[in-house]
């Protein structure tokens, strides 16, 4: 077992050599031309037409949309596992589909943007040959409904805790005691970071509540900069608490608005699997570099909160993921290792250069393992 090789494994090592020689009809070797190859048709009416002889091994199938609607095409086996897909195949367009096929039965499954069910073509049988490439059963939007609902329940509870803490933060700032305000800032901010807001989870609220000054014309002095980091900047740069009162009030209000809006917000099921790695992508980019820090020196505490946010997503997805992702236990193990490296740490400056490399590499490895989740659980139309 090589923990840092997410897609490794004996079968794949063999496939690296791949490419092979163009053999049967409808096939094309890696470097060949399209000229003489038979083309598989992919449309609702003629799904898989032309694929009569299949051969084992690594190969490129040419797939042409002979219908008049935009098509999605998948190569599936008898068990329903998807080996390859082409999305958005326009009418008249031919695209290559690269696969490695072992013994078994395979067919194309075609759907288009009309309302009808996907159509599965005739299965072709392959005997002999080496192991096939990786494949996984498709997940539908409704398969993800349970995960989304479980996740949203947790997020709703988290936003409730957040609202209490930002309220306390507002009071602390209003009291005029800068030390108390700084002490109240961190738990409130971590409560937000634990939610794993990344890349638009909360729409415009994320920018208001947790925006950074980059991209604002006035930078840290831009009047449009609000939220935790704006408050952090003020509290750790000696700004008067009386002038920060408005910032804290605004933050408190934005969090309340988020809380009130939450029941109306809908999370796109397609987004949740993306969050599995996106939260920590942001951590690596903004926290482990120190870029997001506005003076509090709490990047590592934020990173630990982001690990919790990642686990929130992963745990919600676990029921659909468990049978589809062999590296899930390994992923959990690397998240645990990452958590351990962050334990008891608050500031980036606490770490030596070599400790930082250990933390960065552990985060990077966790990310490599989390990234496949988005691919495996991307919702796909199933029959």
């Amino acid at each position, binding site marked *: 077992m090589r923990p840092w090789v997410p897609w490794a494994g004996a079968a794949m090592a063999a496939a*690296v050599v791949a490419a092979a020689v163009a053999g049967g009809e409808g096939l094309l070797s*890696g470097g060949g031309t399209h000229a003489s190859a038979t083309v598989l048709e992919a449309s609702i009416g003629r799904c898989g037409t032309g694929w009569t002889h299949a051969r084992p091994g690594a190969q490129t199938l040419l797939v042409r949309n002979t219908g008049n609607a935009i098509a999605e095409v998948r190569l599936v086996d008898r068990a329903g596992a998807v080996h390859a*897909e082409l999305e958005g195949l326009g009418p008249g367009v031919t695209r290559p589909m690269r696969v490695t096929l072992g013994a078994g039965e395979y067919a194309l499954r075609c759907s288009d943007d009309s309302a009808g069910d996907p159509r599965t073509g005739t299965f072709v049988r392959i005997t002999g040959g080496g192991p096939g*490439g990786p494949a996984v059963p498709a997940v539908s939007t409704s398969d993800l409904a349970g995960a989304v609902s479980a996740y949203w329940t947790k997020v709703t509870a988290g936003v409730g805790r957040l609202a209490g803490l930002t309220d306390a933060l507002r009071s602390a700032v209003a009291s005029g005691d800068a030390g108390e305000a700084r002490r109240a800032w961190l738990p409130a901010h971590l409560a937000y970071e634990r939610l794993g807001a990344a890349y638009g989870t909360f729409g415009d609220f994320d920018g208001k509540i947790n925006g950074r000054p980059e991209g604002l014309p006035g930078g840290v002095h831009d009047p449009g900069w609000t939220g935790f980091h704006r408050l952090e900047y003020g509290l750790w740069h000696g700004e008067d608490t009386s002038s920060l009162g408005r910032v804290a009030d605004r933050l408190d209000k934005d969090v309340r608005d988020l809380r009130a809006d939450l029941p109306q917000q809908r999370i796109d099921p397609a987004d949740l699997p993306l969050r599995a790695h996106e939260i920590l992508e942001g951590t690596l980019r903004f926290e482990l570099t120190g870029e997001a820090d506005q003076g509090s020196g709490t990047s590592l505490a934020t990173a630990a909160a982001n690990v919790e946010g990642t686990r929130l997503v992963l745990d919600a997805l676990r029921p659909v993921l468990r049978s589809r992702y062999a590296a899930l236990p390994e992923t959990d193990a690397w998240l645990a290792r990452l958590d351990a490296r962050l334990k008891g740490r608050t500031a980036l400056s606490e770490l030596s*250069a070599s400790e930082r*490399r250990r933390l960065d590499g552990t985060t990077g490895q*966790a990310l490599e393992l989390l990234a496949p989740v988005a691919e495996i659980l991307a919702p796909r139309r199933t029959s």
Partner: protein
Amino acid sequence: MTDRRSFLRGAFAAGVGGVATASVSGAAASVSGAAASEAGDAERPLRGFHGVHQAGVEEAPLPRTSVVAFDVIAENRRELADLMRAITDRARVLTAGGVPDGAGITAPPADSGVLGPDVPGGRLLVTAGVGASLFDGRFGLASRRPAGLTTMPTFPNDALDPAWCHGDLSLQLSARDEDTVVHALRDIARHTRGAAQIRWRMDGFVSPPRPSGTPRNLLGFRDGTANPAPADLGRLVWNADGGTFLVVRLIRMLVEFWDRVGITEQEQIIGRARDTGAPLDGDGEFDPPRFAADPIGKIIPLTSHIRLANPRTAQTEGSRILRRGFNYDRGVDAVGDLDMGLVFTCYQRDIASQFEAVQHRLKDEPLVDYVRPFGGGYFLVLPGARDDRDFLGRALLA
């Protein structure tokens, strides 16, 4: 003006006189392989991955290289062995070429795609080594540190930055094209993230012959003229087990200052003619300098780089090294001067009696005013992987 420059002028004033000298680095006399860019060569595959020695030492330097030091972050010996297997596996795959795995719908693409869908084989050299720090307490290897593997010290004319020094592992990737190097580095880093992190990295290039002979460095002089002949490598470079010791020196060249120095002085600092690469007492690049006939350095100054680096005496014959220089160019410094220089690498059986002996002879040479060594390290280039089952470092970790 520095005192060393004054020292040189002093030497002139003393009438020892104008004689000239030659190359920036150091070493010895003979021919480096410079043929990589010759016509026809471009399509010929490089040597295969497996062998007694790793590739990338004996071979003629390729135009593009990246020298990378890693720190190992693996938690234990088993993970370290997994790391060495992963590096070996990726090097094997990357040098062989082929169509990368399709991950289908189960993962993002396995390959960056930088080299297209079918990675060309035989276009990459991968050379891996280990540093002394790997043999600290972390992996139970303290008793296995090869005697000759030490930590690069600070030499008298150095200005070392710790962030650019040492490392648990070294990795050099060389190819004809930059995209091949970048592709390999991305691939190897991706497959080893949880076990190793890049500590420092310097990219370099080998210039084409201008107009012929050994490629020039960024001081404008041919660099690497006097390397040992292939037949001498067994004696001077290779250890009995197939490994060798690597010294990397990252040397900033103060090219603006250098460009403000007259040609006679430049040539005397080096010991060679800039245009031809010939020693100042010769006509052609590969003419051997006749130091014995010029005992007080009237033609080639006693302080010239080539004379100190390789005095060509019986006593210094054993200190010769196989040196490879790669130019680097990476932007602009705080005063607007160009940040460029040399990634000096050399191979030898014994660092103390070879590189360090040369380096001690070069102490305070006039050239030191124009260069600033700021990084590098010592590494043991592991014996080659013999076959598909072998991996780099297997003997060390057994």
